[in-house]
């Protein structure tokens, strides 16, 4: 044990390390390995049938597609919101800032039924969209709205610190060299914010892939049309198809791990890159 760590007079190393490792294994590591084993230890034909049958393929397409569109919408508006919150002083700024955290704090089932009420045909928004021929609730558009709702804080809270860290000297230099404000924003500020924006986009995207509570009310859950991958897992479990549920779950778990790993690598790369150019 003394080899493992540097000497310290503070007591409790063995006890706290032992407890931490046991609790971590029991709650997190063993359950996650159960999923990996159950998902991977089945014949390939069975695995591919669970993961690639037409109904599941439709669910994958819908899940990835809506998550992508929602994250794109959030990247655009999230950038504007983060910029506005940091750079401008206006009445209600602090309230706007606090509102950004609501999707983190509001239970997903509550946001789910609230969004459904608003966007169904008699709702506050639905009644305006209906005459335009736009069906929001119980369609892929509804899923995009729900995923935009839950994804916004991820983008804003990632881009906000990056806007705060912008070096005003660079902006001043750009304008002193004769660039218009628009050129400075497009050619100087936007590239500087790009790493944070990409990291926020991927985090929101990864989170959206597994979202459940806020989506299942507004989506309508029609097989082949508005059924997301998470719901398919629940359906398989209700039919006691554990292997099928584990196969889909494993693929989802791997996709989100890969995405979050990319974010970490990207952040590591951009700090190294920035240090070298500085």
């Amino acid at each position, binding site marked *: 044990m003394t080899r493992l760590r540097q000497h310290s007079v503070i007591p409790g190393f063995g006890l706290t390390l032992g407890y931490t490792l046991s609790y971590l294994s029991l709650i997190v590591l063993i359950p996650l390995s159960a999923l990996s084993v159950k998902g991977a230890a089945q014949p390939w034909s069975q695995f591919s049938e669970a993961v690639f049958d037409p109904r599941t393929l439709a669910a994958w397409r819908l899940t990835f597609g809506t998550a992508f569109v929602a994250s794109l919408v959030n990247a655009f508006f999230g950038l504007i919101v983060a910029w506005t919150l940091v750079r401008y002083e206006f009445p209600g700024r602090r309230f706007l800032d606090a509102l950004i955290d609501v999707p983190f704090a509001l239970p997903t089932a509550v946001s789910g039924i609230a969004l459904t009420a608003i966007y169904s045909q008699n709702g506050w928004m639905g009644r305006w969209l209906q005459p335009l021929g736009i069906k929001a609730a119980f369609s892929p558009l509804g899923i995009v709205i729900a995923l935009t*709702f839950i994804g916004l804080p991820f983008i804003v809270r990632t881009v906000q610190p990056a806007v705060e860290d912008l070096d005003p000297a660079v902006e001043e230099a750009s304008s002193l060299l004769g660039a218009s*404000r628009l050129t400075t924003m497009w050619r100087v500020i936007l590239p500087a914010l790009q790493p944070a924006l990409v990291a926020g986009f991927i985090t929101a995207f990864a989170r959206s892939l597994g979202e459940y509570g806020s989506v299942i009310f507004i989506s309508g859950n029609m097989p082949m049309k508005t059924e997301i991958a998470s719901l398919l*897992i629940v359906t398989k479990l209700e039919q006691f198809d554990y292997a099928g549920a584990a196969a889909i779950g494993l693929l989802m778990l791997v996709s989100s791990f890969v995405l979050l790993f990319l974010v970490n690598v990207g952040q590591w790369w951009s700090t190294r890159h920035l240090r070298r150019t500085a």
Partner: protein
Amino acid sequence: MSSHHSHIERHIEPRWMRNAFIAASVGFVGLLILLPVISVFTEAFRKGVAFYFTSISDPLAMSALRLTLITAGVTLAANLVFGLAASWVIAKFSFRGRNLLLSLIDLPFAVSPVISGLVFVLLFGAQGWFGESLSRHGVHIIFATPGVILATIFVTFPFIARELIPLMQEQGAEEEEAAVLLGANGWQTFRRVTLPNIRWALVYGVVLANARAMGEFGAVSVVSGHIRGRTNTLPLHVEILYNEYNFSAAFAVASLLALLALVTLAAKTVLEWRIRVEERSVVMENVMEEVA
């Protein structure tokens, strides 16, 4: 997380552009986020105040509230003990594999809600690894309270540890070393030296974990079996009422959860301010030491 910098007015954008950005931000956040929050409360009172109070005092709503409180209580206690142990070992000692341990603690953040429930069904469900032998001994985890608690512990696993570890790393181990050298034992050192230094971060972590524990839906939905009056938490009760087209009652119960979220956000703002004071005093001490 909120912005805490001095606002130097650097408006070099043309005025029309600044106004357009503010309008777009207010419009987007207002429509996307504020509108749903308002609608929860207006829908909840749609059938009047009397109906509202009947809905939230309904026996099934009460039993859901009871399970939610029990689940949150057990979850917070378990994750609090873990958070303290993990942050103590990670922040006060340096050992091999410390960074790996840190990443493993964050793992549940990357797992989606339904999968967080699925893993426990695969272990303890009827056809799970231990399901059959457990049910032979009359132990029920899935479709019972222990499953609900386990899934909730899993999804809130990193919350408290994650708030404590960076703060305790920042504070270092000098004060604890001094206390031990002066003759304090481990427990005294922790209670008298460490705990006062981390109390606001601790409360912060508990508040965030509590909001998630009481509001968790996906993970709990998979393991609970939706047995009314027995394994229904408040969010699951909302779902059942909603699916029965009992919309006003669903929103009445949902308004309780929305209220919890708003209180959590208010507490979060106050605590963030306290923690900044805590951190600033650490920074000041470090600066003073360097000057001396």
